[in-house]
């Protein structure tokens, strides 16, 4: 009976193999209890709060269980680390809850195969492992798209934080300064990334559909998946026409990502299936409307927020949310194969009640994918707020309670 006072996330953390001998906790007391009467059970460093009847402290599992038996204690929460987030999309897909569980994509190698990267951007400091150019222009991002995409997957800013803010970044430039390139240049970039043993590749690029997945670029993507790499590919922006998913979004083994708003409304531009051989695409949706992320120095892509950030829309912006999710999941479950990762992200997606060839399985959710909870029914749309991360953590508290 007393253990129901212990938040589920805290109980899980205490029971985990290799759990620490002490945990940071916040203890909520019955409101009529004065501060001097709050049970502390010999616990060190208590910090009492006045807005709510609670105190933060460091406690051993035994002390936590003892506190839970005290009638003056209502709830014991984990004292989680909180973060500021990238705009509203990252909290919307519940990435901060995965961070709170201890997974930030740390050291997971992710390749952004795109227009290059602005390596001087502070949000990537110390995490760009390699840069490679296949355009002849040099690896620097002279368009802005690749930097924006990389920020969504792995930016670690104080103001805006990407989905996997501790992932390792491999920046592969295959698109020129005008934002286009040949399929063969992308294929070369993919081969290079596979040779670097990256675990996740983001491809926010493509051509015009329809397609059946047998073209050379789609075949290369599938071959990369066969090598153990998770590929997240943009569905394309030729929607809402039927069969508008283009290559390599029609590849069989990749996770094909369409775009929705932060309020879970599908974007009109998001490409629709089926593929020309009748398969359902996209596989999932993720936020891709008005996404704020890193701005490459000297570029004007999107609607600039300031010198370091800009806002942009597209399935290009939805896809790196998936790549970041894959990095989080691979840190948590390193033995997952790309097929298992894809399946996990798809079956835990939240259906928006749309046609499968518009939404795939629905809007993907980082925490559900981590938790492994299938979600068969639509959920109410939360109202995005600038303090979404903090609210998300509080939601976790209350859900566990």
């Amino acid at each position, binding site marked *: 009976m007393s253990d129901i006072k212990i938040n589920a996330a805290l109980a899980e953390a205490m029971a985990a193999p290799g759990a620490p001998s002490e945990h940071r906790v916040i203890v909520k007391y019955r409101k009529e209890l004065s501060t001097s009467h709050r049970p502390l059970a010999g616990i060190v460093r208590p910090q009492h709060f006045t807005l709510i009847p609670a105190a933060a402290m460091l406690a051993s599992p035994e002390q936590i269980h003892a506190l839970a038996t005290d009638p003056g204690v209502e709830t014991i929460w984990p004292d989680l680390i909180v973060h500021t987030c990238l705009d509203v999309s990252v909290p919307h897909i519940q990435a901060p809850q995965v961070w709170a569980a201890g997974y930030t994509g740390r050291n997971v190698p992710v390749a952004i195969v*795109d*227009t290059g990267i602005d390596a001087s951007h502070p949000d990537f400091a110390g995490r760009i492992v390699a840069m490679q150019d296949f355009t002849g222009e040099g690896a620097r991002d002279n*368009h802005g*798209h690749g930097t924006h995409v990389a920020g969504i997957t792995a930016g670690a800013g104080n103001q805006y934080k990407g989905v996997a803010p501790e992932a390792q970044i491999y920046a592969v430039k295959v*698109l020129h300064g005008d*934002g*286009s*390139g*040949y*399929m*063969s240049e*992308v*294929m*070369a970039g*993919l*081969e290079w990334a*596979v040779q670097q043993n990256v675990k996740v590749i983001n491809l*926010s*690029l*493509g*051509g015009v559909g329809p397609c059946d997945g*047998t*073209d*050379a*670029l789609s*075949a*290369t993507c599938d*071959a*990369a998946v066969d*090598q153990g790499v998770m590929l997240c590919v*943009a*569905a*394309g*922006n030729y*929607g*809402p026409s039927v069969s508008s998913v283009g*290559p390599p979004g029609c590849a069989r083994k990749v996770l094909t990502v369409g*775009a929705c*708003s932060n309020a879970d*409304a*599908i*974007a*009109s*531009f998001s490409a629709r299936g089926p593929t020309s051989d009748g398969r359902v695409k996209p596989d999932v949706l993720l936020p*891709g*409307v*008005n996404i704020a992320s890193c701005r490459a120095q000297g570029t004007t*892509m999107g609607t600039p927020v300031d010198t370091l950030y800009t806002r*942009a*829309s*597209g*399935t*290009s912006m939805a*896809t790196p949310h998936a790549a970041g999710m894959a990095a989080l999941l691979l840190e948590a479950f390193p033995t997952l194969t790309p097929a298992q990762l894809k399946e996990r992200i798809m079956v835990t997606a939240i259906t928006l009640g749309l046609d499968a060839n518009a939404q795939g399985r629905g809007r993907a959710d980082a925490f559900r994918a981590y938790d492994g909870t299938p979600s068969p029914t639509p959920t109410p749309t939360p109202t995005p707020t600038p303090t979404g991360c903090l609210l998300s953590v509080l939601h976790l508290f209350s859900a566990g309670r």
Partner: protein
Amino acid sequence: MKKIESAFQNKLQAQPQRTVRLIVRVKGELSAATARLAELQATVLRSFQLINAVAISCSAETALALLDEPWVQAIEEDRQVSVQKPKKGKKGGQK
């Protein structure tokens, strides 16, 4: 797998002197294919291990001649791809 899409074949036949970029899927050794392509006056731009293919530049006439080569599994246009941002005027929101 078709050796070539008929629409692309028609395009090559319409302008045989035009220079084109192709991706050629190869049966067998890439090195042997590369040597043969040089004999056919094609420029090999890149080779790919993941799908056993080469990217080349050649005349449309040479591209059509490749269809008779037994080591050629398929040829396709090396098409352009681009970043996936919406065209101007296309906004988000449900549709």
